């Protein structure tokens, strides 16, 4: 297990370094941060001074080296736009994004899994077909349009839910949470649904097709032959055996959940990291962009780690211990 963790850690560092490097080369072309910062009537000297201050005159490898060195010490620099430490900015925004992404993931799983199981079991049922078709809405309209339509319906026309923001947040230690106030809870509904819709469809379809496979296996037939209850067979045996690929995909999709959060956060003015990033792109706030990308890579690595560990929990065949039984085959 330790070896496994060490290996993953090394991989993680490598992945993050490559991500950072790629990102760094790209930033060159996103735009010029200086123009976004100076007054319109600033002189060329002013601009040159600022350029020097920002270290933009160094060659890229030097810039990257400095960045990597600082980043390794947890120092991601100062935001050009906000004039604050990037680490603080991102930490401030993280709870919002994580709460949104996690709520969406849970929502997607809570709806997607049972619907997937159901449509897998009743492949030809009318209800299954309806569910399958309706679920396609989740992937047939762009997220931003769904978000705007939801806002229009629930905030403007019905006036039931807020159209933007996080509502009242409650500070719990360093963490600002939505979940502890009524308005916070109300606020998260629409963004979470918007974000979850795609994932839900995906999970549902995946589970369905995996269920269809698993239900035909011998051990399911054998479980029925043993007279186990339907529930035990469908959930205990069939569903559990779909989990390895489902966990893989959900893990991979969590990454895209965070990416799609950029759009959801923009539409719902959700004060998360995605919005911070998007704004950073607009004003070429390089420190924020690099920190965000590294953070996303970090999340991905962590998620992958968790996914791998879940494999071990779910599937005993993947555990590293030596087979104790004599024999093969």
């Amino acid at each position, binding site marked *: 297990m330790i070896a496994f963790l060490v290996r993953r850690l090394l991989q993680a560092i490598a992945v993050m370094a490559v991500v950072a490097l790629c990102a760094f080369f790209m930033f060159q072309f996103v735009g010029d941060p200086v*123009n976004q910062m100076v007054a*319109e009537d600033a002189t060329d000297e*002013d601009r040159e001074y600022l350029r020097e*201050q920002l270290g933009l005159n160094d060659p890229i490898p030097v810039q990257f080296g400095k960045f990597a060195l600082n980043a390794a010490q947890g120092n991601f620099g100062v935001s050009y736009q906000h*004039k*604050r430490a990037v680490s603080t*900015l991102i930490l401030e*925004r993280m709870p919002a994004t994580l709460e949104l992404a996690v709520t969406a993931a849970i929502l997607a799983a809570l709806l997607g899994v049972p619907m997937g199981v159901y449509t897998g079991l009743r492949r030809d049922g009318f209800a299954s077909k309806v569910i399958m078709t309706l679920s396609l809405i989740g992937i047939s309209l762009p997220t931003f349009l769904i978000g705007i339509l939801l806002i229009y319906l629930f905030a403007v026309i019905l*006036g039931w839910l807020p159209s*933007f923001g996080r509502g009242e947040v409650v500070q719990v230690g360093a963490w600002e949470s939505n979940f502890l106030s009524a308005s916070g809870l109300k606020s998260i509904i629409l963004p979470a649904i918007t974000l979850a819709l795609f994932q839900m469809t995906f999970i549902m379809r995946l589970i369905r097709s995996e269920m269809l496979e698993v239900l035909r296996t011998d051990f399911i037939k054998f479980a029925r032959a043993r007279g186990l209850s339907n529930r035990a067979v469908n959930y205990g045996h069939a569903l559990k055996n779909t989990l390895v690929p489902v966990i893989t995909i959900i893990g991979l999709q969590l990454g895209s959940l965070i990416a799609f959060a950029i759009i959801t956060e923009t539409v719902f003015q959700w004060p998360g990291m995605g919005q911070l990033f998007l704004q950073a792109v607009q004003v070429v706030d390089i420190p924020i962009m690099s920190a965000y990308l590294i953070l996303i890579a970090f999340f991905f690595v962590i998620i992958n780690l968790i996914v791998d560990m879940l494999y071990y929990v779910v599937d005993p065949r993947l555990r590293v211990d030596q087979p104790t039984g004599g024999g093969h085959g």
Partner: protein
Amino acid sequence: NAKELRWGFQTDTDSLDPHAHAVTFTIGFLGNVYEGLVRRDADLKIEPALAESWTVSDDATVWRFNLRKGVKFHNGNDFNADDVVFSFKRIADPDAQMKTNVASVKEVRKIDDHTVEIITSAPNPILTSRLNSVFIMDKEWSEETGSTKVTVMDQDKISPAGQTSMGTGAFVITDRTAQVKTTLVPNKNWWDKTQHNLTKVTMTPVKQDSTRVAALLSGELDMAYPVPTQDINRVNSNSGTSVLVGPELRTIFIFMDQASKNLFGTDTKNPFLDVRVRKALYQAINIEAIKKKIMRNLATPSAIMISPKLFDRASDFARYPYDPAASKNLLADAGYPDGLSARFDCPNDRYVNDEQICQAVTSMAAKVGIKLNLSAKPKAQYFKQVLNPKNRDYHVGLIGWTPGSFDSHNVVTNLIASYSDEKKTGRYNLSNNRDDRIDELNPMIQSEGSKAKRDAMIAEVYKRVHDNVYYIPLHQQALAWGKRDNVTLQQRGDNVFRFRYVTIN
């Protein structure tokens, strides 16, 4: 009874530091908290603020300001000349982007506790027009909190003034979560008479246009701006909300590279060297259609490059008429009977409906035979590309300008005078034309004290621009502020929102 104003703009203030950012919204917002020696009223006229009165020497280089007595900062500290000297020093720091406002200031001298003298390096009759955004901070507070300098790019040198504020203004920030919400309450000890009836103000940024409009419609915001032009009808037809429209100071115009022999990056001869071609493009543009269809009448077509509000002789000028036939003739005269083609660069997230305007211009120009290849991109990339006087990578482009000093000289020296690094002129002369007469007039306008003479010289410049079609001015875009009907407020042409004029019924 509590009168809370909940309002939203498309972004948040960059930070609360009054000197660090050269960003209109940030400075505009902080103007509710901080004050300068002078301020602008609802009609943008300069009026006394922290200075009760001032005098200027004849050569317009020494300004003496008599400071208002009894003014207190929000923390109760007295306002005095030390604070002024300190603030001018802080804003002149090379890392403070507001430093351009004091670029002409050579020295600030404390005469006594309530008198200061400002000495400029050259005659500057319009100094006060820049001083309204030189905000005065409390010296003691700044020293206590370690805010004597603005933030530089080092994690350990972050100025606390970015996160908290200490001004003399009509409102006090009580609570702020950056990018989420900033809460203000009225300053009970404010020196001026209050006109508003607010008890609390909350500001929330809402980036997405449709979301912002939705929040206004659903009553979650009392005031929100900008309202996209196409949504104005919707907001007006909604019961309880309406849009307050008014002309903005920003002028939108088209520039054409008039220096390069060949179109940048091609072997094609630059057709815009010929005034007839420039005029052909001018006359191909149906400005009324743009006004009606794209701007929904929220634009004022303009013949010159400054808002008529800022130049009294604006009415002397009239646009060349929209006349495609004339355009075609001009092109034929210039030797382009079969038309010509050039690239058209355009920002897509900077001005009101910028991209649509460019698309419309493209289509109109195509009708007379000028084939413009539109390339629209985000401002970060657009400005990087066009705002480089050493490498003018464009043929035709679109840009907008608000004179920071609310004065024509700003336009002339930045946009019209030819580019010169040492004279610091023409940094934004994107048309890249060189007109010796204008270069001659430019310094004269700056130091001319007489308004009539000055206006005449400015008019001469604008006439030359018009005759030679150095630029194609389009319009002044309009402001559209959405609000609930029970809110009354003053809309300023510089798009700055002052809470002190707001009342809620």
